[in-house]
C-alpha cells in the first residue's frame, strides 16, 4: 500500500505542486510553513479538490490520473482523512460520528475496533454527546477516532494533535507510530510540531511556497541543519541506527550499540539484537574533548566532520561516530560559537558528544522489512 502523489493544483492564484511517495510502511510527515500547501495536497489526494493534472495512486492503482481521465470519487478512494478543521457531523452524536465511516467500510476491511479507539482517545464519557457540546480538544479526538474507525487504506492526518494536551499527545503518538505496521496502513501526517516528526516519521516531505522543497528518509532530512529555517531553530537533530545489546530491566533502560559504541536510552520494548532508531536533537548534545564522569551517561567518541555557522550565537557541529559520515552514524550538536572556539573544534578533530539518556527517543524498527 504505497500512496503515490504527483499533482498540480490551482489554489486561488497559486499553484500547488507536489510529487512524492508515502511508503507502505511507516509514517510520512508533511511539514512546511503555514500556507505552504500541505492541506491542499491532502484534500486533493482524498478527492475533495480536483488537481489540474497529475496522478494519485494507491499501491499502483490510480485513484486519479488526469492523463487517463481517471478520477475516483472520494468514497471509493477509502483514504481516512482527519481534517484540519475537524468537521464533525453536527446532527449526530459522538458515537454516530465515530461509526459513520465504520458502517460504510467493506466487510472485509480491517482496522481497530470502537472500544479500542474510544479507550485510546479517552472519549468514553462523550459518546452520547453532540459535537457542539465538546471542547476543542475533545472534538479533535473524535475526528481522529472517526478516521481510524473508517478502516481506510491509508490515513491522511492534518495537524491531528494540535490542540491536545501533552500526556494525550504522547499516548496518541505511540499509538499512531504502531499503526502502519499493525494494519499495513501508510500514514501521511501534517504537523508543525517537530517533536511529532521526530517521534513518528520515517519519511519527511518538506513543502515550501507551494512546492516540495526537500524529501527523504527522516534520518537524512532531519539531520540536515540547513533546513532549520523551515523547521525551526531548536528542533533539528539526528537519527542514529543501532541494535539492542542489553536490556536493563531494573533501571528501565536499554543499551543500544551504534557504530561500535554503547548508548543508554529509556527502555525500548524490543528483543536483543533488534534494529532500533534513536532520535537525538542537536540542542541536547554537548561536546567535550574527552570522556567525563557525568549523569550525561552517553558520551560517544567521534570525529568532527562539519561545522556550520548558524545565526549568532549558534553553530552546528556534525560528529561522525564511525568511519564515514553515513547517515545513522552521525550526530549533530548545537552549541555556541564560543564553545567551538574554546574547545578548539575543527573538522577532522576528535570530539566526544555527550547527551543524557532521557534526551533520547528510541523506537524499534524491526517490524519493517
Amino acid at each position, binding site marked *: 500500500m504505497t500512496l503515490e502523489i504527483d499533482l498540480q493544483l490551482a489554489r486561488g492564484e497559486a499553484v500547488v505542486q507536489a510529487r512524492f511517495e508515502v511508503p507502505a510502511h511507516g509514517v510520512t510527515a508533511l511539514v512546511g510553513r503555514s500556507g505552504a500547501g500541505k492541506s491542499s495536497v491532502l484534500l486533493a489526494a482524498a478527492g475533495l479538490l480536483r488537481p489540474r493534472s497529475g496522478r494519485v495512486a494507491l499501491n499502483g492503482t490510480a485513484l486519479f490520473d488526469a492523463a487517463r481521465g481517471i478520477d475516483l470519487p472520494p468514497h471509493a478512494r477509502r483514504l481516512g482523512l482527519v481534517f484540519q478543521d475537524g*468537521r464533525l457531523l453536527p*446532527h449526530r452524536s459522538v458515537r454516530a460520528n465515530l461509526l*459513520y465511516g465504520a458502517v460504510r*467500510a467493506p466487510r472485509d476491511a480491517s482496522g481497530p475496533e470502537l472500544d479500542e479507539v474510544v479507550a485510546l482517545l479517552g472519549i468514553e464519557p462523550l459518546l452520547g454527546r453532540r459535537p457542539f457540546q465538546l471542547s476543542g480538544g475533545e472534538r479533535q479526538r473524535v475526528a481522529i477516532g*472517526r478516521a481510524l474507525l473508517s478502516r481506510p487504506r491509508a490515513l491522511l492526518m492534518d495537524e491531528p494533535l494540535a490542540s491536545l494536551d501533552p500526556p494525550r499527545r504522547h499516548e496518541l503518538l505511540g499509538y499512531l507510530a504502531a499503526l502502519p505496521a499493525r494494519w499495513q496502513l501508510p500514514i501521511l501526517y501534517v504537523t508543525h510540531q517537530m517533536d511529532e516528526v521526530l517521534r513518528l516519521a520515517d519519511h519527511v516531505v518538506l513543502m515550501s511556497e507551494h512546492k516540495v522543497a526537500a524529501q527523504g528518509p527522516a534520518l537524512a532530512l532531519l539531520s540536515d541543519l540547513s533546513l532549520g529555517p523551515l523547521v525551526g531553530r531548536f528542533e533539528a537533530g539526528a537519527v542514529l541506527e543501532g541494535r539492542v545489546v542489553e536490556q536493563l530491566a531494573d533501571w528501565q533502560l536499554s543499551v543500544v550499540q551504534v557504530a561500535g559504541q554503547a548508548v543508554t536510552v529509556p527502555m525500548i520494548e524490543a528483543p536483543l539484537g533488534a534494529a532500533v532508531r534513536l532520535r537525538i536533537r542537536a540542542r541536547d548534545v554537548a561536546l567535550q574533548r574527552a570522556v567525563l564522569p557525568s549523569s550525561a551517561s552517553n558520551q560517544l567518541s567521534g570525529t568532527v566532520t562539519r561545522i556550520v555557522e548558524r545565526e549568532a550565537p549558534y553553530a552546528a557541529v556534525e560528529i561522525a561516530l564511525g568511519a564515514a559520515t553515513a547517515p545513522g552514524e552521525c550526530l549533530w550538536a548545537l552549541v555556541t560559537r564560543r564553545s567551538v572556539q574554546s574547545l578548539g573544534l575543527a573538522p577532522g578533530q576528535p570530539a566526544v558528544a555527550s547527551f543524557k539518556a532521557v534526551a533520547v527517543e528510541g523506537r524499534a524498527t524491526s517490524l519493517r522489512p
Partner: protein
Amino acid sequence: MTEVERQALWLSFQVASAATLAALPLALGLAFALGRGRWPGKALVEVLVNLPLVLPPVVIGYALLISFGRQGWLGRWLYETLGITFVFSFRGAVLAAAVMALPLMVRALRQSIEAIDRGLEAAARSLGASRLDAFLSVTLPLAAPGLLSALVLGFAASLGEFGATITFVSNVPGQTQTLPLAIYSALQSPDGEALALRLVMYSALLAFVALGFAQWSHRRLQRWLGQST
C-alpha cells in the same frame, strides 16, 4: 359548528396535509437540483416552478383544468391508463394546493440546502459515503430547519389556497369545499359576514395549531443541532 362547517374544516385539514406531503418529495428534488446543480434548462424549470407564485391562482387553476381535466392531454391519458381523475374530486383539490404550495416549499428547502457547509458533505464522502448517501445522511438532516419551514409554508399555503382550487375542481361540498371556498361563498351574500368570520376563526385556529407545532419542533431542532457561543 354546523355540519357544513365541520366538513369544510376537516376537508381543509386533509387537503392541506395531503398536498404538503405530496409536494414534499418533488420539492426536495427540485430544491436540490436547483440549489446545487448546473444543467441546461435550469432557468426554464425555475420559472415553471415559480409560475404559481407569479400568476393569478385562477390562471393556474385554468391551466390545471386544461392539462389534468378529463379532456386535458395529461388528464385523459391518466384516466385511460390509470383510471385516475382529478376534476371535481378531493384528489384535484390536493393537486391544486400542491402546485400552489410547491414554489414556496422549493424555496424554503433550497435556501436551507444552500446554507449547508459543503465541507461536511465532503467529510462524509471521504468517510465512504456515496453522493446519494451523503445527501441522505448529511444534507437532508442538516436541511431539517428548511424542511420544517417548507412543511409549514406548504401547509399554510394549501390551507389558504382558493383561486386555483375553485377554478380547477369547483366547489363540491364535502369533496372540494375547503374553508377558503366556504369563506368566499359566505362573503358573497350581503348577510354572510358572520358566517365568514366564524370560518375565518377556524382557519386561524388551524394555522395557530400548525404554527405552534412548527415552533415547538423548531426549538427542539435547534437544541438538537446546537449553536456555538
